């Protein structure tokens, strides 16, 4: 679950189910163990269908490795999670393994919150650099040292309702959505869909709400497609390009103004509208796939349309990190790496949740290729637009929330694109001037 937690009732329900499973497993084996079993304490924030799938994978690992007991703890997603991981890592009695967003890595630094990954141990378990998508693998490093094992990428994608699209004449002979390039084709497609819907907005996404990040995701996708960046590579200078930024914002405003997108849907409402066939398109991360399937929405997915040049799509990646421990038990460590390797090598199972495996061999597996529509957008893995490498970036970060809040009123017209950009720039300047708690010299 990636949306703001307040809106995703259904997800929480699913998360609850997953946890009940996890909880039952947890109490089946006494904490004291005592036997030859090795306990690996694993934290993650994966709710809803993500959580159920992860719980299943943990169960499968347990079956294959009866000597290891994975104690799964599901914590609330977002800022509370990263706070807890940081405090646990600082404390030094942290969990043996934690799931982490890759874009959050620069934020948390290498300063004794996380321990580096032992590449030799990883290799011994059959994982090598060459197995991973290069930009993502590179991003898992801080100062040349590996701090995270990438698991997947979850890019912005375009969900489309197959029935509605067919009615609007937007599907090709192969039954798939005809791809669009540039603004005009996209607008033409949306207008057709609008007509087919009797004038209702055909496109929905997370456009407003408390702590909304949807406007940031859409804008960052469009802006990155035109080649724009926010911050210089060394993270010291703002490199925001006003012209490109405004072009993207004006386009978003146009969508709202023409009634091509609904500017009044928060995260939950946007997913609900698409689920119930009230909208033909949903722009969102890939994680709603399973939920939509369960609810039998006639839908498929495609890469986010190329609008301003490249096919980039805003994304973040799930990865595995080792929170800092004062005394890491070598045998637990060995079991932990075994568990990581198991999960990564079974990425195809994970991909059911909608995420694109970061583990390249998985992308070629027949099991993955057979996943529909999950394998439709796999090519995006080389064009993911990750956050700038600054400490205030990453999932549920201040950057996302500030930019989301600045751009949300632009879509509805309550603020002009210029005003929205100015608000965002002020926030960015403020964030840049605040001292970095983990300055690079420390690593």
């Amino acid at each position, binding site marked *: 679950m990636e949306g703001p937690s307040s809106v995703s*009732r259904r*997800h*929480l*329900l*699913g*998360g*609850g*189910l997953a*946890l*009940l499973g996890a*909880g*039952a497993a*947890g*109490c089946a084996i006494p*904490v004291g163990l005592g036997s030859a079993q090795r306990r690996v*304490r694993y934290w993650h924030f994966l*709710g809803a269908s993500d959580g159920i799938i992860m719980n299943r994978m943990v169960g499968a690992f347990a079956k294959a490795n009866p000597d290891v007991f994975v104690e799964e*703890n*599901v*914590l*609330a997603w977002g800022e*509370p999670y990263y706070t*807890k*991981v940081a*405090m*646990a890592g*600082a*404390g*030094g*009695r*942290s*969990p043996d393994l934690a799931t982490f967003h890759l874009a959050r890595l620069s934020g948390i630094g290498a300063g004794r919150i996380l321990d580096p990954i032992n590449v030799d141990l990883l290799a011994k378990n059959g994982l090598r650099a060459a197995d991973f998508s290069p930009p993502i693998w590179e991003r898992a490093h801080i100062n040349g040292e590996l701090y995270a094992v990438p698991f997947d990428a979850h890019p912005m994608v375009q969900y489309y309702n197959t029935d509605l699209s067919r009615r609007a004449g937007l599907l090709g002979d192969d039954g798939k959505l005809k791809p669009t390039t540039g603004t005009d084709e996209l607008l033409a497609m949306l207008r057709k869909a609008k007509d087919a819907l009797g004038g209702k907005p055909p496109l929905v996404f997370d456009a407003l709400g408390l702590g909304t990040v949807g406007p940031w995701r859409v804008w960052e996708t469009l802006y990155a497609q035109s080649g724009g960046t926010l911050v210089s590579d060394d993270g010291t200078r703002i490199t925001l390009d006003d012209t490109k930024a405004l072009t993207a914002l004006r386009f978003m405003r146009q969508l709202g103004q023409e009634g091509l997108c609904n500017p009044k849907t928060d995260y939950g409402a946007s997913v609900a509208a698409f689920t119930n066939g009230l909208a033909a398109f949903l722009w969102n991360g890939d994680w709603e796939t399973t939920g939509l399937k369960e609810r039998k929405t006639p839908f498929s997915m495609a890469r986010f349309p190329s609008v301003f040049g490249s096919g980039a799509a805003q994304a973040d990646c799930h990865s595995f990190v080792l929170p800092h421990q*004062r005394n890491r038990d070598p045998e637990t460590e060995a079991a932990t790496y075994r568990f990581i390797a198991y999960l990564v090598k079974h990425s195809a199972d994970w991909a059911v949740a909608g995420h694109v495996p970061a583990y390249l061999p998985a992308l070629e597996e027949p099991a993955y290729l057979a996943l529909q529509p999950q394998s439709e957008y796999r090519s995006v893995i080389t064009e993911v637009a990750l956050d700038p490498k600054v400490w205030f970036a990453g999932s549920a970060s201040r950057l996302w929330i500030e930019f989301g809040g600045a751009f949300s009123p632009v879509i509805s017209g309550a603020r002009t694109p210029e005003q929205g950009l100015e608000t965002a720039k002020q926030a960015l300047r403020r964030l840049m001037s605040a001292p970095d708690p983990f300055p690079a010299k420390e690593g």
Partner: protein
Amino acid sequence: MTKRFSPSQIILLVVAAALAIVWLAPLAWAVATSLKPESETTKLPLQWFGSELTLDAYRLVLATGGIVKWAINSTVTAVVVTFMTVLFSAMAAYGFARTQFRGQRVLLAVILAGIMVPPQVLMAPLFAEMVSLGLVDTWWSIILPQVAAPLIVYILYKFFQDVPLELEQAAFVDGAGRWRVFFTIVLPLSRPVLAAVSIFTFITTWNNFLWPFLVSTDPNTMTLPVGLANVVQGTFGLRYAQIMASVVLAGLPLLVVFVLFQRQIIRGVAHTGLAGQ
């Protein structure tokens, strides 16, 4: 001056009853929700009773294990904090009230000044200290800072000053040692005030949220309030019957104890609370 059922008594009674109903309603609503089948917890219009009374929610909550573990953590830490606080504070208070040593006045002043230092203000440095001691995610990190309660020393110090000297002198004349006097004469004499501060300390520790919340990141070391806030809402998602069952289970112990020991608890809270919270 008034009869048992004077009109004024009846009016007061009605007002009190109305207010009591309002004040108890949220708790009653928690209990009512926890006893409903999950599918009926958010049914509109609101109904106090579902189609059946069921303990399913409680069964599920207890089966997932967390709440039992946290109750153990809460009990252990609250009992240890109470015991250590009362014993050490009584010793210190006695030392200040009845003995003399170099630097006594300065030390006493330093301790009294500590009453003004709220634990909330120390959250950052105390956490940093626990990090360097390597105690984060242990019972001791929850316990130790809560034992450093200067208010209790102050209350007991005031009390010991008022205890007549003669009783102790008699014992000294009989050849008793100082520690024996303290443990066999002074402490038993102070039973009411010790009970009061014990009750107060236990309640505060049991209910404390911020500090245990900071130092227990591991769900295995969390206390009841921390587990409830951090894990239960995530775990049960929006399963209201189970969340409310957890709320009832976490809130119930002190309420039951209150019904059983109302007078002592009121004295403990009023006596100790008045001196500063």
